[in-house]
């Protein structure tokens, strides 16, 4: 089937081959002609520039050290920054690799067709590329209305385009981070506490006595400050309880590891709630004063005993009781970590609710060692005219479904782009900034159909990621170390702001996101929304409003402000009005009940793997983030490909050897494009397999990442949609092993 937009695979065979052959020579021996490698450079010869990291979303403030030749030598954490406390994670430390990766996008690219009909990217000037995108935006506005131009975004690059689109008249944007990651817990915690857990989460792990990780693999995800605080907690002798079907790093450092059967977490949570309620271990004063619905809860969990949970979760009733009592003993200094990527089985908002209810029963919300009240600096907006009101927004795609969604749902944006889904409001073109949709979205066939259906796709990225293969125009973005950007003002214990300024000029012909957005804005006649020449002016204005200046921030990088919203924690017996319908913490969710959802979570049984299939569980590795870093030379050195973890009993059954390459096939017949190596390990159960996410890139321009490992996302074709907020549950997929290359067998390889 010929698609309108071919996935353009451009090979850099020449450059790649040269690089490999030089390395294969190994030692050259004669130091005569090549310049000697410099040893370490003394700090006196380095100039530090403040920035905050963009490799992941933790946004740790850092200093980029530039040597006398104008090369960034290393990036170290800013000691005053609460996100990192002076210590960056491996991705941040390897951030220099992002700048000096030769595979970076260097010039704007425009899709063109050759005489023989094949499509390719030709290099273009900025003017040509910007003119083309602006022309398309005008065209869409005239033909379909500005709302028909959608945006997929993540991180600070997206922010600039969000501003542009709002000025243009569209709020048709969606971030994978919502429906494909943490959305369910936002809706769950908001409906319970009237507040979001935020990013970084407001967990007071530093002072906790008991840390409960259910759906969080701290240590394998490098959520910097939280991993640091977990280490502090270990030093202080805190009890760590990890619930995970896999023996994760966190499980290894825990006092209790509950090897739960996958898809049964709600049963365990409800059993814990049962123990707390029926053994009277919950915080009676706190619950009395601040919560609503205890009677409903008591009634609801009556039959959810540990024995009942044992039959479902395979966790011994005694263990359930012991861990519940440990939590209660540590209360209120107990953190039930809300998790991060929580889209599992489609009932994830309810699971989040169970965790929130547990938190409330332990009385730890708003208490030291539990959850603190974060506060962020309110950075004034640079003056611009009022945004035009769009006729419809992302809320309208949902068409009444997912009533408690708080942000655009990416899969809905995809469906709204495909005419045959017949959505009332159709999306005709996309801007994609900072997200690699083919590897981050489940249901790849849906994505491909949508990419084929829209009239125009413009992508802004730093690397030739897989998404660029689907674009009509590609904008090369300057990396975070080469640009100014919005002030970071994430909420934390102390309100603080961090500055990002360029350490070096953008390499090649790349440009900062703010410049691209402004250039497009100018061409669309939206000058008043971009009333500045250099983004430094915007930052300086904002800083002056806050009582400081760009000059000062350049010297310190981060500045803290005094709290204005009150203390970090609830005082003993202090009166507090929660931002919920009842004004109290809702153990029984009135909003959920109103919309016809379970007001208190129920356990639903989910399908189990069929014969010869194994549940696919995926997660993170601390040296990588998303699919973004697989090509980074520093980080691909640490981990160049993923592997599929297989239990030794399963390996015996299939006669698999360690390091053997297998293809994976899922229950819907999808097959991975590339093989993946087997790792035989006891750390995974016999009914599941585990893979680290972010590998299996198909774009040949990624010389280090192309073809390495397999993409777990290709195996996620069964999407379990959460009816409450549209979250896309991805863990209901099962895989089997193919030991022979399916192409050789003549089977169709589904890309």
């Amino acid at each position, binding site marked *: 089937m010929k698609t309108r937009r071919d996935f353009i695979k451009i090979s850099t065979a020449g450059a790649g081959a040269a690089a490999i052959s030089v390395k294969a020579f190994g030692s050259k021996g004669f130091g005569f002609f090549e310049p000697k490698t410099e*040893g*370490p450079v003394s700090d006196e010869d380095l100039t530090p520039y403040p920035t905050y990291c963009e490799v992941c979303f933790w946004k740790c403030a850092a200093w980029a050290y530039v040597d006398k030749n104008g090369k960034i*030598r290393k990036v*170290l954490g800013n000691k005053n920054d609460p996100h990192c406390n002076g210590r960056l994670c491996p991705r941040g430390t390897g951030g220099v690799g992002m700048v000096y990766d030769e595979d970076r996008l260097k010039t704007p690219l425009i899709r063109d067709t050759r005489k023989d009909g094949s499509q390719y990217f030709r290099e273009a000037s900025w003017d040509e590329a910007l003119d083309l995108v602006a022309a398309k935006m005008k065209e869409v506005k005239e033909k379909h209305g500005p709302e028909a131009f959608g945006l997929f975004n993540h991180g600070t690059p997206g922010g600039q385009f969000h501003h542009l689109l709002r000025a243009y008249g569209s709020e048709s944007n969606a971030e994978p981070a919502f429906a494909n990651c943490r959305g369910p817990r936002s809706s769950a915690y908001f409906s319970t506490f009237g507040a979001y857990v935020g990013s970084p989460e407001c967990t007071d792990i530093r002072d906790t006595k008991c840390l409960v990780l259910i759906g969080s693999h701290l240590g394998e995800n490098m959520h910097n400050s939280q991993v640091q605080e977990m280490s502090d907690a*270990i030093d202080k002798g805190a009890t760590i309880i990890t619930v995970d079907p896999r023996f994760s790093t966190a499980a290894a450092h825990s006092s209790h590891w509950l*090897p739960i059967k996958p898809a049964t977490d709600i049963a365990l949570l409800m059993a814990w709630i049962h123990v707390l309620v029926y053994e009277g271990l919950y915080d009676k004063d706190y619950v009395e004063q601040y919560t609503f619905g205890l009677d409903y809860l008591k009634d609801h969990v009556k039959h959810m005993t540990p024995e009942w949970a044992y039959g479902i979760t395979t966790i011994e009733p005694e263990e359930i009781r012991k861990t519940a009592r440990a939590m209660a003993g540590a209360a209120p200094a107990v953190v039930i970590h809300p998790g991060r990527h929580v889209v599992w089985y489609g009932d994830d908002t309810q699971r989040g609710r169970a965790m929130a209810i547990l938190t409330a029963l332990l009385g730890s919300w708003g208490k030291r060692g539990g959850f603190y009240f974060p506060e962020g600096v309110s950075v004034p907006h640079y003056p611009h005219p009022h945004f035009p009101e769009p006729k419809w927004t992302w809320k309208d795609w949902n068409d009444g479904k997912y009533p408690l969604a708080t942000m655009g749902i990416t899969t809905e944006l995809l469906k709204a782009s495909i005419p045959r889904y017949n959505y009332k409001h159709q999306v005709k073109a996309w801007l994609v900034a900072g997200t690699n949709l083919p590897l981050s979205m489940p249901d790849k066939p849906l994505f491909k159909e949508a990419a084929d259906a829209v009239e125009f796709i413009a992508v802004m990225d730093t690397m030739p990621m897989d998404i660029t293969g689907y674009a009509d125009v590609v904008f090369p973005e300057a990396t975070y170390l080469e640009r100014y950007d919005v002030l970071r003002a994430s909420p934390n214990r102390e309100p603080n702001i961090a500055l990002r300024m360029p350490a070096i000029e953008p390499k090649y012909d790349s440009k900062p996101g703010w410049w691209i957005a402004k250039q497009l804005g100018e061409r669309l006649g939206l000058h008043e929304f971009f009333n500045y020449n250099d983004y430094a002016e915007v930052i300086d204005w904002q800083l002056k409003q806050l009582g400081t200046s760009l000059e000062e921030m350049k010297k310190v990088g981060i500045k803290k402000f005094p709290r204005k919203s009150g203390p970090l924690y609830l005082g003993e017996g202090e009166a507090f009005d929660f931002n919920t319908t009842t004004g109290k913490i809702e153990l029984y969710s009135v909003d959920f009940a109103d919309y016809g959802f379970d007001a208190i979570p129920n356990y639903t049984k989910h399908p189990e793997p069929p014969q010869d299939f194994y549940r696919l569980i995926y997660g993170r590795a601390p*040296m990588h983030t998303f699919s973004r870093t697989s090509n980074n030379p520093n*980080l691909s050195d640490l981990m160049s490909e993923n592997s599929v973890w297989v239990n030794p009993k399963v390996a015996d059954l299939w006669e698999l050897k360690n390091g053997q390459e297998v293809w994976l096939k899922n229950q819907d017949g999808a097959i991975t494009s590339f093989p993946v190596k087997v790792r035989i390990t006891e750390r*995974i159960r016999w009914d599941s397999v585990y893979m680290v996410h972010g590998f299996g890139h198909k774009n040949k321009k990624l010389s280090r990442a192309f073809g390495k490992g397999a993409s777990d996302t290709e195996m996620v074709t069964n999407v379990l949609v959460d009816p409450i907020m549209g979250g896309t549950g991805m863990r209901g997929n099962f895989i089997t092993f193919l030991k022979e290359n399916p192409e050789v067998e003549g089977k169709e390889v589904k890309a």
Partner: protein
Amino acid sequence: MRYAMAIDTKKCVGCGDCVVACQTENNVPHGYCRDWIVERVDGTYPSLSLEFRSERCNHCDNSPCVRCCPTGASHIGQGGVVLVKHNKCIGCGACIQSCPYDARYSHPEGYVDKCTFCLHRVQKGQLPACVDVCPTKCLYFGDLDDPNSDVSLAIKDRKWKVLAPEAGTKPQLFFLT
């Protein structure tokens, strides 16, 4: 003065930050590393134990690499730190053969290279790059002869082990267990 390092395996999560930080600080070429992470799993599901070790040159007290170097390029520097003088090294590889920890490697430029405990930083009162960056703060560095240094305090009250003690090298990297 005897520099040494302690690694708390109860806190190490095997993130590899120490590896990247060393690479950017010391300009280690891609494809090579002066320190590395080893993961060790024991047991059968679900009775399992897991240990992460951040390993590097042990700067042994009885270092075989210094002993076997024919030119004296491998030598003991300040504080017992084992160093390599690049312009004395002939690249014969004897030291690589003699290290039971495989801590040395042949730098593409011909000489032999390895962890130097970031002596250039330590001499200025800073910590080695790996110790400075570790997010879990599981690396402790200091002078063993000073009872109040980080490393002395770390090994005082904890059980620890060294790698391959039977090789007789008297390594100075202590793994807290």
